[in-house]
């Protein structure tokens, strides 16, 4: 490994490391505009010039373009190099407008910093500056091309790193223009990153435009909870309002970037209709009063109908603290354990995934980038967890083969093999690939169970065109050195997470190394599955209410009206309740119906932790103290100068603290009293769930810790002998309805964001050309889709990248799809009409 000396300090780095990176490791930050650690070097700006005094290269050279080599002696402070950099900045500033006072980047602008640091103060060039026309780039990004210094970071990110091609470079030399062919919304769901990486103010954050300088904001590290990946973010808040969100570097999760759903989804926390006061029916009361009233009602019901007469629903968007306290609450009261999942199937799938993920198999997103073969089963990354698509693209750029087995019309920003098969055929299709690539002897070595799994799994996929394509894929898989299986949990069957894990085990046995990556539906689905011991579901609770055994229902940050498939049935059940208690921060439908409502705090107002889909416990600090945004009570003017002790609208409390207070009132004498200390709650969690024992909760912002259940105790290969051959049960008279996610418009929290609402696409029904021609339907026709409890009207889209025998529809905010009795839904073919 090359050893070199930079500014008198010696360092040894891996071969291929650039001098600029080697210096950064020593804590020497060489000026840069075009170089970005996530994008690599390009040598466009010339500002990273340093002097090479000894070694194979001599003189002033670009440190971002020079590989570190043995014997190099580098000076970053050399007079000649410093003078060179100063002149580079001067010429980059030649056309740059002096509009810093009205530019949103001012205060955290790299160009501004380096101009000051480099010592360029007086303008010598007196000619006219080059000017451009700006473009409308949509809701998120503000364009101001005159400020451009041609570093190419935006284009390199947008086209090369992310794989979208509607923003690029036009023209030549000092006229080079970065933009689109015409005005319009940027098509990439990762477009916001060009704001973060632009070294000056060409792209600025549009929603937070003119809301403050960097030092005006309360800023802090936090987490994105708009999908299960748990990307790291930085929050900015001002005037009691969450204003802006940026990507925070994370070594193992998101790298340098985040998606637009994460960046612009946070507006639910400022929502003008967000309930901020406790309520008894429609009357606003103090939080303490509401807790007292709730305690009385709960005691009444418990005395009359027993402890099992109150059911609790938690949610997978709640933090670990809320989920754990709800469980603790129910256990102490002797109630049934809370429910976190909509259907028993969903509960089972997630629990199996959590049970099967172990330390050896689990991979992080950064490790996916290193895979040379990715096999995604029942996963639609761009729509379910956008940042995963970006990680897969990096693997693709390193020449990995990527295969997606999914019935939906999956789009990914790179070339991949799509095997569109029906949900029932996902498993046989997967095992056929594995059997083709793994020799029987590998399974034999793993024991009897593995061999049974191997021998009984179908070896061939019956559908000829797909079977033919699989031949080439298995060849690639056979040569792969680091295969990774990605398995979704939304549209797959109950056993699929197990089959995926077993397939990964077989691949590991055959190839020496393999990874497993599950996708889950929400930010803390993994946490919910770890903490809850029962496999109950919302469906069971609704049944109990109908039977009359449950009289009271408590929702903790949960809105079943959004996710429960049968709206009518749920509404009738809720109407029957004696007590309907809701704790939430969203203006949800359930919150409106609540008999008793408690306002809770969002992620941005409390210190919390979430467990992402690879079992990584991650932490967030509070960004600000909450309360009604000043902009919402001042009608745009200057807020009143009224002195008060409390924060207006700041009554919200963490749900777990409300639960603790409630528990302390209703608990019988002699029972455990709950403390309001987070550390005390965590020591309870660590005691009850030993896998959490290593979580360093006392630190201010602890490092992530991975927690995995499977430690050799789990039964491997449980689905041996159960995977039936593919394509057998296909009925020609019905179509299976698959409901999926869309990047914008389906995830609960982000659908409350006014900016994401503007970029949502209108919901539509996808159908394969084969089925459409049988029904005589045409592309873009309005159609009626009959469901168990009514019908839906929407546009039909015919796409040839999806499985026949299946229709696909998003769980879209604009679609009242909750007319389904139970999953899976089969629709008779003749029933779909114009």
């Amino acid at each position, binding site marked *: 490994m090359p050893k070199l000396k930079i500014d008198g300090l010696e360092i040894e780095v891996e071969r291929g490391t650039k001098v600029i990176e080697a210096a950064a490791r020593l804590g020497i930050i060489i000026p840069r505009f075009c170089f970005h650690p996530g994008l690599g070097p390009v040598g466009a700006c010339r500002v990273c010039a340093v002097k090479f005094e000894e070694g194979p290269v001599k003189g002033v050279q670009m440190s971002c373009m020079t590989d570190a080599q043995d014997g190099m002696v580098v000076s970053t402070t050399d007079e000649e190099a410093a003078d060179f950099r100063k002149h580079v900045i001067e010429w980059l500033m030649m056309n740059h407008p002096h509009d810093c006072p009205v530019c949103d980047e001012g205060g955290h602008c790299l160009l501004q910093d380096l101009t000051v640091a480099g010592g360029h103060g007086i303008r010598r060039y007196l000619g006219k500056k080059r000017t451009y026309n700006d473009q409308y780039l949509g809701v998120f990004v503000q364009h101001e091309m005159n400020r451009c210094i041609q570093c190419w970071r935006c284009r390199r990110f947008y086209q090369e790193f992310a794989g979208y091609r509607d923003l*690029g*470079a036009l023209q030549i030399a000092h006229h080079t*223009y970065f*933009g*689109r*062919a*015409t005005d319009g919304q940027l098509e990439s769901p990762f477009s916001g990153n060009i704001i973060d990486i632009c070294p000056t103010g060409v792209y600025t954050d549009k929603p937070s435009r003119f809301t403050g300088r960097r030092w005006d904001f309360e800023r802090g590290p936090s987490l994105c909870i708009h999908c299960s990946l748990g990307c790291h973010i930085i929050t900015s808040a001002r005037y009691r309002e969450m204003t802006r969100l940026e990507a925070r570097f994370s070594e193992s999760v998101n790298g340098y970037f985040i998606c637009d759903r994460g960046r612009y989804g946070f507006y639910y926390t400022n929502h003008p209709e967000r309930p901020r006061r406790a309520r008894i029916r429609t009357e606003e009361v103090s939080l303490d009063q509401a807790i007292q009233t709730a305690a009385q009602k709960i005691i009444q019901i418990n005395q009359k109908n027993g402890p099992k007469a109150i059911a609790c629903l938690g949610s997978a968007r709640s933090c670990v603290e809320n989920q754990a306290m709800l469980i603790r609450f129910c256990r102490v009261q002797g109630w049934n354990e809370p429910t976190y999942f909509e259907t028993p199937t969903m509960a089972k799938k997630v629990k199996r995934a959590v049970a099967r993920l172990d330390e050896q198999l689990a991979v992080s997103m950064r490790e996916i980038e290193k895979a040379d073969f990715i096999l995604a089963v029942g996963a639609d990354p761009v729509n379910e967890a956008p940042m995963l698509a970006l990680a897969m693209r990096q693997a693709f750029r390193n020449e990995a083969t990527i295969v997606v087995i999914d019935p939906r019309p999956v789009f990914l920003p790179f070339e991949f093999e799509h095997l569109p098969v029906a949900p029932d055929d996902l498993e046989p299709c997967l095992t056929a690939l594995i059997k083709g690539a793994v020799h029987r002897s590998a399974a034999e070595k793993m024991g009897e169970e593995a061999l049974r799994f191997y021998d009984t799994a179908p070896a061939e996929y019956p559908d000829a065109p797909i079977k033919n394509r699989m031949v080439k894929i298995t060849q690639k898989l056979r040569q792969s050195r680091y295969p990774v299986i990605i398995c979704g949990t939304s549209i797959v069957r109950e056993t699929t997470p197990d089959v995926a894990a077993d397939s990964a085990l077989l691949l590991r046995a055959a190839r020496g190394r393999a990874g497993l990556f599950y996708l889950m539906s929400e930010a803390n689905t993994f946490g919910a599955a770890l903490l809850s011991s029962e496999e109950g579901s919302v469906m069971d609770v609704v049944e109990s209410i109908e039977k009359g055994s449950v009289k009271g229902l408590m929702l903790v940050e949960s809105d079943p009206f959004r996710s429960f498939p049968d709206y009518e049935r749920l509404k009738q059940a809720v109407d029957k309740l004696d007590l309907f208690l809701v704790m939430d921060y969203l203006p949800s439908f359930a919150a409106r119906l609540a008999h008793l409502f408690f306002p809770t705090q969002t992620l941005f107002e409390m210190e919390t932790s979430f467990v992402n889909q690879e079992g990584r416990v991650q932490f967030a600090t509070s960004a600000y103290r909450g309360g009604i945004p000043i902009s919402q009570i001042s009608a745009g003017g200057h807020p009143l100068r009224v002195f008060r002790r409390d924060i207006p609208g700041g009554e919200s409390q963490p749900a777990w603290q409300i639960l603790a207070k409630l528990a302390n009132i209703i608990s019988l004498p002699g029972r455990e009293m709950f403390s309001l200390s987070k550390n005390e709650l965590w020591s309870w969690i660590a005691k009850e769930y030993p896998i959490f024992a290593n979580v360093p909760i006392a630190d201010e912002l602890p490092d992530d810790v991975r927690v995995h259940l499977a430690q050799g105790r789990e039964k491997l290969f449980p689905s041996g002998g159960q995977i039936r051959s593919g394509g057998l049960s296909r009925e020609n008279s019905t179509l299976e309805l698959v409901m999926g996610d869309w990047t914008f418009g389906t995830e609960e929290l982000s659908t409350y964001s006014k900016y994401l609402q503007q970029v949502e696409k209108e919901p539509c029904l996808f159908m394969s050309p084969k089925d459409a021609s049988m029904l005589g339907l045409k592309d873009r026709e309005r159609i009626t889709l009959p469901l168990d409890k009514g019908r839906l009207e929407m546009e039909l889209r015919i796409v040839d990248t999806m499985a026949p025998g299946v229709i696909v529809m998003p769980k879209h905010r604009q679609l009242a799809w909750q007319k389904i009795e139970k999953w899976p839904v089969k629709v008779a073919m003749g029933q779909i009409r114009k």
Partner: protein
Amino acid sequence: MEASKIDRIVRQYGARESAILAILQDIQAEEKYLPRETLEYVSQKMRIPMVHVFRIATFYNALSLKPRGRHKIDVCLGTACHVRGGDKILDKLERDLGISVGETTKDKRFTLESVHCVGCCSLGPVAVIDGDVHGRLSQEKVPGLLKDFK
């Protein structure tokens, strides 16, 4: 430009993305410029994003997004021609034709452009009209130079 004509050009190069420059050159030769609708058609037909087609179309001086005249005058402003008064030739042409550099006369007779070296510095100052080099120019020679072009 009719779709069939564009199709023929695209087909000639096997619709490969790498051939986009040659395709645009052929369209330019045919139309004397690159009409927007034609570029949009090429973008759709070849499944190349519009921004990429535009990138090529705006990168090269030889390609134009604006309609051109029947005859193209390129005045050299490279170092050698500049020293020998290339800018004076350009100035005279601008005054005589009543247009600025980069523009086309109203009667679509001439388009005036400047270039940076055409590779015959010993002849400077030089202007290239429709591919023919006219060397050792002076302001006095300019009117005679233009009269042969209709």
